């Protein structure tokens, strides 16, 4: 199908899709690969890169990699790397719905501890897409599956603190709006939304997210 392409918009956010984006399936017709850059705020200030490639399936679908990292003066100590799949599961005219599962690895390094965490996410989006622009509602969840903690400063204050693998200690949920517009060979996308802790039990310190991304297709 000719009108399957993607755009990937999105990048970032761990595990899910705060900053990550699904493709505007209508925007590009004969594209195989999409590369994007993104900047925004989600839990913390962050930037990201992403790449996705069309999958030879009966529906518009793509597989991709998303890398996201918080700002700071140490370049590669904290990051999130996600493998994603996304597919347009439903379409009626210009109305469209997309499902996007993801699985990833997250690393955190601070004076307190070094953490490596396995996480999984699921994003559902739906809205109006044309080949020039799109507007969607997006909901997503991101769950930590297990984390390995190696303590630094905390080891000094509490020598008995346990270093090793821990079961899940939480996850996040997000709900937001996404809009994109085609600019020649590029797609500009903006996201705004609200974040909660697992099961809406609490909110992160910065409970809102916002991002801008620019995607180019090849």
């Amino acid at each position, binding site marked *: 199908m000719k009108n399957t392409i993607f755009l990937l918009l999105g990048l970032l956010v*761990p*595990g899910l899709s705060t900053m990550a984006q699904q493709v505007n399936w209508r925007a590009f017709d004969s594209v195989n690969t999409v590369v994007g850059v993104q900047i925004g*705020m989600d*839990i*913390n*200030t962050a930037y990201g890169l992403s790449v996705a490639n069309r999958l030879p399936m009966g529906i518009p679908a793509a597989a991709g990699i998303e890398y996201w990292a*918080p*700002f*700071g*003066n*140490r370049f590669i100590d*904290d990051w999130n790397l996600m493998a994603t799949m996304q597919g347009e599961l439903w379409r009626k005219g210009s109305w469209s719905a997309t499902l996007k599962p993801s699985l990833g690895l*997250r690393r*955190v*390094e*601070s*004076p*307190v*501890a070094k*953490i490596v*965490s*396995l*996480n*999984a996410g699921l994003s559902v989006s739906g809205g109006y897409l044309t080949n020039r622009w799109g507007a969607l509602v997006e909901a997503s969840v*991101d769950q*930590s*599956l*297990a*984390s390995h903690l190696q303590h630094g*400063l*905390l080891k*000094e*204050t*509490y020598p*008995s*603190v*346990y270093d*090793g*693998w*821990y*079961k*899940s*200690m*939480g*996850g*996040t949920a997000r709900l937001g709006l996404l809009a994109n517009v085609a600019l020649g060979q590029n797609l500009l996308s903006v996201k705004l939304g609200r974040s*909660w*802790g*697992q*099961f*809406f*039990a*609490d909110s*992160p*310190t*910065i409970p809102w997210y916002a991002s801008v991304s620019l995607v180019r297709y090849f």
Partner: protein
Amino acid sequence: MKPFSFLTLTLGLLGCSPADPLSPGLLVPLTVAEDPTLPFVQVNGTTLHAEAFGTPGDPMVVLIHGGPGGDYRSLLKAASLADEGYFVVFYDQRGTGLSERVPKSQFAGAEAISLMVNDLDAVIGHYREADSQKVFLFGHSWGAMLATAFINQFPEKVQGAILSEPGGLTWPQVEAYLSRSNKIRLFSEELNDALFPEQLFSGRSEHEILDYKAAYFTSVENAPGNPIGNAGPYPFWRNGAVAFDALFETGSTYGLDFTSNLNSFQPPVLFLYSELNTAYGRAWAEEVSAPFSAVQLSVVPGSGHEMLWFGWEGFAPQVRTYLSSLK
């Protein structure tokens, strides 16, 4: 098979059985409710981690830690006052440090501050041997605010007070000070070091996880170039995240004013501020201490806000001179 079950199986095959973060003592130290070897007092319906140094009948100096939600570990250099004829008492406030965890509901409503004041009154009552025994309060940061709240309510029960950098004695003062001391730099390494882990520890109400998560914010407070002048991290046992949240909510919801009756307190107060805390300074110390009838205002050289840990050498002589004058 659920993803988590699959992961657990995989890790198990690799010899890695994930630990339960709620297992006592794994992420945060055991409290007096879990470790019977810790020193404690049972007062006012709760069990507090507490200990005392010196001869019980000597003039009493009660150390009151900061936060809210901190603990007294970084104040322990003041235990040396016991060598100079003082009975020095330390306690972790309700729901903080190694004191037992308590539900947030205990801090509910406008009476939360009175609860903390009554806890302090009960600690003094527990250790005091005679009505003639003098009592001096020694409060740091939030602890200096709590000491002032106590004096405001019970001026006749205290014979002197040492206050080191209380953020403010009214809620507007607290807000003004926090706006200077907690500057937010959104793109900084230290802030993102604290916020990034929130993706992992979220949506959980268990106090162990909340306390553990709060520890990550020490990277912000003590980062190089911090406005409060701390030279680096300082020791603590446990961040009492629930107590911190609850008492902060109390202040922002109901306000606070610890100055309404301070003119009833006649002894001089030793009011100290640190040389390196750029959010404080002499002008702010003069404004905050103004409601007291008599104030000895002084600076602790070469230290930032945590001056009982980083600046004790410059702090101690002033404390000794002050206490000797009232002993």
